[in-house]
């Protein structure tokens, strides 16, 4: 019977080049700009490496790809929210202008700067027109709908690529496992066949000592 010790060696820590991080930084650069915080990316990468335990340079590249795409998805979602928030003032300006509010431009600027008087004035103006705060967000979205749509497409693409990377990694690992299975099967065939018939032998019955067993009571 083959055991794990019979498996041929595969690429492991012993085969990892000493300069692997430098090589990976060169061939799979992290998607971080100059001002982007490194810590969240590094933490996610370390977590995924610990989980997947990649072997060899190719699997390491896949893991980096997976983390990069996931990181992209998270950041694109944040960017989308930031664009909407940053343009809320512009959205409010359009709403107040349509409502015929006097000095709507300055009022929208003060509201965007979170001036309490301006917030109260805007709330009153919206309530008078039977509108909720959602219209401001809707106007901001309308102003940048093409960009938001483009970001949504990028999110979809990044998610699809992230999942595809995982499928490729599993496919590769399955191919490796298949090779290992075949190697073990070939090794077993090379060994002497296991004797399947039982050879009769003499034996002596051992007397049961009193108190050794407890009889089952009915």
């Amino acid at each position, binding site marked *: 019977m083959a055991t794990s010790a019979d498996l041929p060696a595969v690429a492991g820590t012993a085969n990892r080049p000493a300069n692997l991080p430098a090589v990976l930084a060169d061939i799979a650069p992290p998607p971080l700009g100059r001002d982007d915080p490194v810590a969240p990316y590094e933490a996610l990468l370390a977590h995924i490496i610990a989980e997947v335990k990649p072997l060899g340079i190719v699997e390491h590249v896949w893991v980096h790809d997976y983390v990069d795409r996931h990181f992209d998805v998270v950041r694109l979602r944040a960017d989308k929210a930031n664009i909407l928030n940053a343009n809320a003032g512009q959205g409010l300006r359009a709403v107040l202008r349509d409502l015929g509010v006097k000095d709507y431009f300055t009022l929208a600027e003060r509201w965007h700067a979170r001036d309490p008087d301006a917030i109260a004035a805007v709330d009153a103006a919206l309530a008078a027109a039977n509108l909720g705060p959602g219209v401001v967000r809707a106007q901001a979205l309308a102003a940048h709908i093409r960009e938001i749509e483009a970001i949504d497409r*990028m999110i979809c693409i990044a998610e699809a690529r992230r999942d595809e990377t995982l499928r490729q990694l599993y496919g590769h690992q399955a191919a490796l496992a298949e090779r290992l299975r075949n190697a073990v099967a070939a090794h077993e065939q090379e060994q002497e066949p296991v004797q399947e018939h039982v050879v009769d032998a003499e034996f002596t019955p051992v007397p049961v000592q009193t108190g050794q067993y407890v009889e089952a009571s009915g």
Partner: protein
Amino acid sequence: MSRARRAFASRANSRKSTGPNTLAGKSTAARNARRHGLNLPLLHDLGVEPDVDALARLIVGSIVGLAAEPRILALARRIAEAQLDLARIRRVRLPVRARLATEPTVAHELLRLDRYERRALSRRKQALRAFDAALPPLPARKAPAGEMAKRS
């Protein structure tokens, strides 16, 4: 239409339909189509060739018992080429991506750049499939104790 007006219109039309005359103007116009150079194959830059070779050898070397035969190395080179192309594309994309938060219109530029990444990813996928399919079966041998498969 008088002859003078016709001549004037003719000269104006001519200016619209002809290119630059000066050397400086011609050299500027020659670079019109070049923005990032991602349409060029990676190996157009001869300086990249050693990097492709080194990465191909690293890929082959990371698989125990795999000899660096020319056929296997050629397949590994395809992976290396696609991977280095991906790295090149991502480096071009990075500064554009950094502007997205403050300049939402760059989202369209990012989408345009994406097709280069899609092509490189497709090339890498095909190359990896061909490489995996070409791997010889592992030799059947009894490994000494402690040499069992280790996950790093």
